[in-house]
Each structure stands twice: as C-alpha cells, then as structure tokens.
C-alpha cells in the first residue's frame, strides 16, 4: 500500500527583499538614540537656518530696479540714438566691435541696432548686436538670445520690421544676408523707436589677498563706431536724437556724428537682472548640521551591528549580503530624505519674515514660491543631499567596520575642504570644491542663470558649480563609488 508523501502544512517563509526592508526598518526605529538623532537633525537644521536668516542683512540696491515685459527685474540702461520707425521698416548699419577706454572690453559688451517699443527702460525690444567675446547675436526681451557665430570683426547688421515681427540678419559685405532669428513683440505700436545703441555690463574682477576675497565691479565706458547707416520707413539717421535710457549713468553717454556714420559711448547693460536667491539659500544653510548628524546615524546603523556581533545574525538570516547593504542604504536614505524634506519645508517659509525684516524685499528679492521650479529644486535637493550623505556614511561604516574612522572620514570629507580652501589661491580653491562631496550643496542655488549674463560663482559663497545638478552629480558619484566598494568588501570578508 502506498502512502501519500509527506507535505508540510506550514506555509514557506517569505525571505524576499520586502522582509529585509522591514527588518532594517525595525532595527532603525527600535534604537531610541537614533530616533533622537534624527529629530535633533531636523530641529538643529531649522534653528541654524533661522539664525542665519536673522543675522544676514541685505545691502541697499544701488540702482532702482527696472521691470521687464514679463514682470521680472532687468537691467535696461544704454546709450540710444534713435528715431521713429513705421510698421513696415528696415534698419541697416555696419557696426564695429565695441571697445573700452584703458582696458579690455567686457566679453558681453554690446553695440548694434535695435527696434524698441518705446524709448523707456524695460519696454520690449529686439536687437542685432556685435560683442567682443561672443560674436554676433540677436537678442530680444532680455531673455531671448541667439548667436550667429563668426569671429570678432565688424559686421553689417539688419533688422526688418513687418507689423509686430522683427527679423535680424547679418552680413559680411552688406549684400548677401544670413537670417539669424526673428521674434514677435506683442506690445509694439504702429510707430516704434529704432536706432543705434551701445551698452557694457560692469566687469566683475575677483582677487584674493590675505585670505579674504574681494570682488570689484569695474564700470566700463564703452565706445562703438557705426558706419553706412540706412533707414527705410522713418526719418534718416541725421534727424535722430540720443538718450541715455535707464538709470542715470556715471557720466552722460554721447552720440557724435562722424564722416560716414556715428560714434556712440555709453554705460549700462541690457540683460535680465539675476535676482539674489538669498531668500531660499540662506535658510537652507543649516543643512550642514543636519548632514553631520545623519552621517553619524548612517555610520552607527552599520558599525553598531559589528560591535555587538549582531552582524552574524543579520548575515545568517540574509546570506545575500548585497541585499543587506541595499536594504540598509534604502531604509536609512529614505528616512533621512523625509527628515531633510520636513526640515527644509519648515525652515524656508519660517525664515521669510526674518529675511523681509532684514531688507530682502520684492522686487529685487521676490518672495519664493514652492511652485517655482528653482525653489522646489533647492528644497528637494537639500533633502536629497542629506539622504546621499547618509547612504555614503552607511557605505563608509561597512567599509571600515570601525565607527571612529568612518565618522571622521565622512565628516572630514564634507567639511574640511570648504574650510581649508580659504588658504588656497582662487583657481585651486574652485577646483578643490568641485571635487568634494560638499559640491552637492550647489543644488541650493535658486538663481536663474542665463548664458548671456555674466554672474559670479565664488567658493566663498559656497558656490562651487554654476549648474546646480552638476554639484549633486559629484555627490552621487562619491556615494556610488562608496557603495560599490562596500558591496565588494562585504562579500569578500568573513563577516
């Protein structure tokens, strides 16, 4: 007689990755000291951010800010020699590269021809221009910029207006034209202003002496020469008048007729005015304290297992050690991300009244909205930096198995370069900062950066990368290398 083979009635245990995550989460939440460390990280980040906001005060802006067609602050100051232009018209001129008296012109000095809605700073415009450092360009309404390439010599420029559409052309000889770009100016009336202009942004020169960095804005008086000026659809150039648009320049600009054209001199710039991001960046400076605390948490979550011998139990329960490392990294990273997010979301709104009282007010410093992608990037990025630092600490703990060396290595890696670079020369300092994990903090910048506006990115401001995501990429690379090394070592060692 055959008997049925024995089959156990007990359901098989679930040893999937989900169980492993649950185990790691249980370990993390059951140590009171670690929960307190997380809470302390959030509280200290908020407190430090608030005290930074209370302690900083804004310099009074030297010039009243102009507002562009889209409502954002712009700089619109230049010497304009102009006359009326009808709905269908054309303006041609041969423009030479602008030059500065006594020094090399800023690369973004501009000289060229422009069609502007009114002779008023902040109104809509489209312009074809020649720049010393960036060739021929077609710019309109401050944010739109198209390059036409081609060296640094004089060029023939042409703007054609038909209704609200302005098209820009460039030529080397005045006969064969290449189209560069075109735009629609919504606010253009039947009669617009058209003419010649010259503008030069202040050139920022940074030097370092005695361990402190000085930033000097060199105000440049720029000169440009125009010849063979032709107008269709308006009075000839001889009947034009010259104005200094925008805020009062250090000296009045001039427009003098020459034998076959004009020479203009002027100051000022036509560009978006990069708004300071202090209202977002300053409250988030507390993240470094939170980072140190979550790094301690990450290291402890691994090294305490080694010290107590729990690691043998863990590896017995989950022989696939890579998954153990992954589960620890995921749990610690997720918990830290949530903590960092909570801290950022609390500190940025809470610091706004303090910042407003200290001089950070619209329109130069508009109130940050969470719907603004730059602000959202700064807030989420800060939480991401904390999470990545915690995962890096987990990897460091797994690599060294010794809590003192792991925590020292992580904190030093993050903090020491920023402190020591004050002693190094400027270029070395920039490179050192770009290669450290602390470059991740560049994600906190919330400034709109445009390619055609020169901005300063000093190590002393904690700015290591102009592009925020590049800095975060450095931190991601460090974390990935750490995890890979930890993975390899965990699997090779006995325990």
């Amino acid at each position, binding site marked *: 007689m055959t008997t049925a083979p024995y089959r156990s009635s007990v359901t098989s245990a679930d040893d999937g990755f989900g169980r492993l995550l649950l185990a790691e989460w249980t370990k993390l939440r059951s140590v009171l000291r670690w929960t307190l460390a997380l809470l302390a990280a959030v509280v200290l980040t908020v407190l430090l951010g608030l005290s930074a906001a209370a302690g900083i005060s804004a310099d009074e802006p030297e010039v009243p800010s102009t507002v562009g067609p889209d409502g954002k602050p712009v700089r619109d100051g230049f010497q304009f020699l102009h006359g009326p232009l009808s709905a269908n018209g054309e303006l041609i001129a041969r423009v030479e590269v602008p030059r500065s008296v006594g020094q090399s012109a800023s690369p973004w000095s501009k000289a060229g021809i422009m069609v502007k809605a009114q002779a008023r700073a902040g109104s809509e415009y489209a312009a074809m221009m020649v720049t010393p450092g960036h060739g021929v360009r077609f710019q309109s309404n401050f944010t739109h910029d198209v390059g036409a390439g081609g060296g640094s010599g004089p060029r023939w420029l042409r703007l054609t207006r038909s209704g609200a559409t302005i098209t820009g052309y460039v030529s080397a000889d005045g006969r064969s034209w290449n189209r560069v770009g075109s735009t629609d100016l919504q606010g253009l009336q039947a009669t617009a202003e058209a003419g010649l202009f010259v503008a030069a942004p202040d050139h920022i020169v940074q030097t370092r002496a005695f361990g402190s960095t000085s930033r000097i804005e060199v105000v440049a008086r720029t000169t440009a020469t125009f010849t063979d000026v032709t107008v269709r659809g308006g009075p000839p150039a001889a009947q034009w008048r010259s104005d200094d648009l925008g805020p009062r320049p250090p000296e009045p600009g001039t427009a003098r007729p020459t034998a076959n054209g004009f020479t203009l001199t002027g100051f000022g710039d036509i560009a978006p005015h990069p708004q300071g991001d202090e209202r977002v960046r300053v409250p988030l400076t507390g993240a470094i304290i939170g980072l140190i605390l979550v790094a301690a948490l990450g290291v402890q979550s691994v090294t305490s297992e080694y010290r107590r011998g729990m690691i043998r139990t863990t590896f017995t329960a989950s022989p696939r050690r890579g998954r153990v490392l992954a589960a620890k990294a995921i749990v610690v990273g997720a918990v830290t991300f949530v903590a960092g997010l909570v801290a950022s979301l609390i500190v940025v709104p809470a610091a706004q009244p303090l910042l407003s009282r200290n001089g950070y007010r619209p329109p130069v410093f508009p109130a940050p909205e969470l719907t603004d992608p730059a602000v959202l990037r700064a807030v989420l990025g800060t939480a991401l930096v904390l999470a990545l630092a915690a995962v890096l600490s987990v990897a460091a703990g797994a690599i060294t198995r010794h809590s003192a060396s792991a925590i*020292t290595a992580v904190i030093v890696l993050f903090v020491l370069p920023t402190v020591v670079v004050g002693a190094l020369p400027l270029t070395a300092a920039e490179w050192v900062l770009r290669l450290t994990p602390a470059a991740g903090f560049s994600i906190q910048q919330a400034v709109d950066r445009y390619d055609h506006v020169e901005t300063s990115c000093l190590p002393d401001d904690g700015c290591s990368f102009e592009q925020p995501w590049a800095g975060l990429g450095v931190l991601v690379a460090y974390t990935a290398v750490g995890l890979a090394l930890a993975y390899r070592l965990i699997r090779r060692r006995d325990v």
Partner: protein
Amino acid sequence: MSHRSSAADRSPGQPGMVSRALHAEWTKLRTLRSTVLLVSGAVILTVLLSASAAGSAEPHTDLTKMSLTGVHVGQLCLVVLAILSVTGEYGTGTIKTTLLAVPSRVTVLLAKALTVTMIAVVVGTAGIAGSLAVGGFLLPEPWPGETGTVRAAAGTVLYLALVTLLGLGIATAVRDTVTAITLMLTLLYAFPFVAQLVGDPDWQRRLHSAGPMTAGLAIQATKDLDHLPIGPWPGLGVLIAYTVSALLLGTVLFRARDA
C-alpha cells in the same frame, strides 16, 4: 594586623599613585595599533598638507600661516586619539578594570590627560618642524621674520595640545565614540563652515571669534593682525576657555556617574 584604610587608597595624594596611573595609561596607548597609525598619520599628513599649501601660496600673503596649514589634519588625528583613549575603554568594558585598579577618578583623568597631552606636544613639534622645514624650500619668498614665526609655531603646538584636551573632556562627558567624534568635529568645523555660507561680515567676525578652532588658529597669523576677527592671544584664550569647561564637565560627570 593592620591594613590600609580604603580612604587612603583613594586619595590622590598617595605617593606613586599618579605615576603608576600614568604608566598604565601609557602602556594602554602604546600597545594599540591604532595609536601608531594615528600618530604617524598626524605627522605625515601635517607635513604633506603644509607642503601643498606652501607650494601653492602666493607672495605677499601670510606665508607662515600658509605653511602651518597642516595643523588642520594633525588636530583631527590627535582628537580622534584622545577620544578613543576614553571611549575605547567604555566600548570594550575595560573602564571597570581601570577604575578598580585606580579608584580615584581624578587620578585616572589626570593620567589620561597627561599622556595624551605629551603625545600631542611631541606630534605637534615634529609636525610643525617638518612643515616649516618643507615650507622653507617651497615658499616663493624667503622667511619673513623670526619673532612672528616663533610665536606662530609655538602657538600651534600649544593649540594642538589644547584641542586634544578638549576632545578628551568631551569624550569623558559623552562616553560614546561616534557621539564624541561628531560633537567634537561639529564644534571645530561648524563655525567656519557656517561663517562661509552666511555672507554677512559682522556675523562672520562673530563666528570666527567664538569658534574654538578659528579663534585658536589666530595664533598663527603673522601679517595683517589688525584685520583679524580676534587677536592671537585672545583667540588662544577662547580655546583655553572651551578646553577648561570641557575638562571640568568631564570630571564632574566622571565622578558623579557609575562608570
């Protein structure tokens, strides 16, 4: 038959007690592999960092301070050594044996402090001497002067000893390795880091005067003394205040607690 009273055993005034405790602490430290690593690492890394700072220094800057930059790394190794000398005992449980052998807690702490300070002074002198020698080769200009350099070098050795004692005090108060190291590194580096991020010059000056590391390192400055946030000797005074408070706190807690 007479036996010594337990009170006499506990009095720190008993001859030979402190020197025996010192001998015990020195034995503990010198038989640890990590001590050798930390001490040699401190000297080598100090000289290396000073060399790279001196090699990239520009003329007309504070060259002495530049060539003493290695102290940043040297202090880390010494602080970790001081912390481990206390928290390592708690971690492995040998603190019970130590306190059984030397019941007077002040004696234990004094012996640890003396041992660790002696190591700090030796390491500091070696590191500073090496830094100045290497700096002499690599600096773009010849040595600026004698008096400023002597104060900077001697002050840096003093600074290292004080920072080491600060770490010892904090470790005695906290008793856990990671917590002590985190607290110590935060105390040292949070002030200059936050000063960098906050752009306001007034706040930068306040933070630089209040932080133990930034105030203590003012002793290294030989040029442009008027523009420093705090003078060399007052800065060292700030660090002394921090160290004394930490040691006092550690002593009080050590005496009051169980082990």
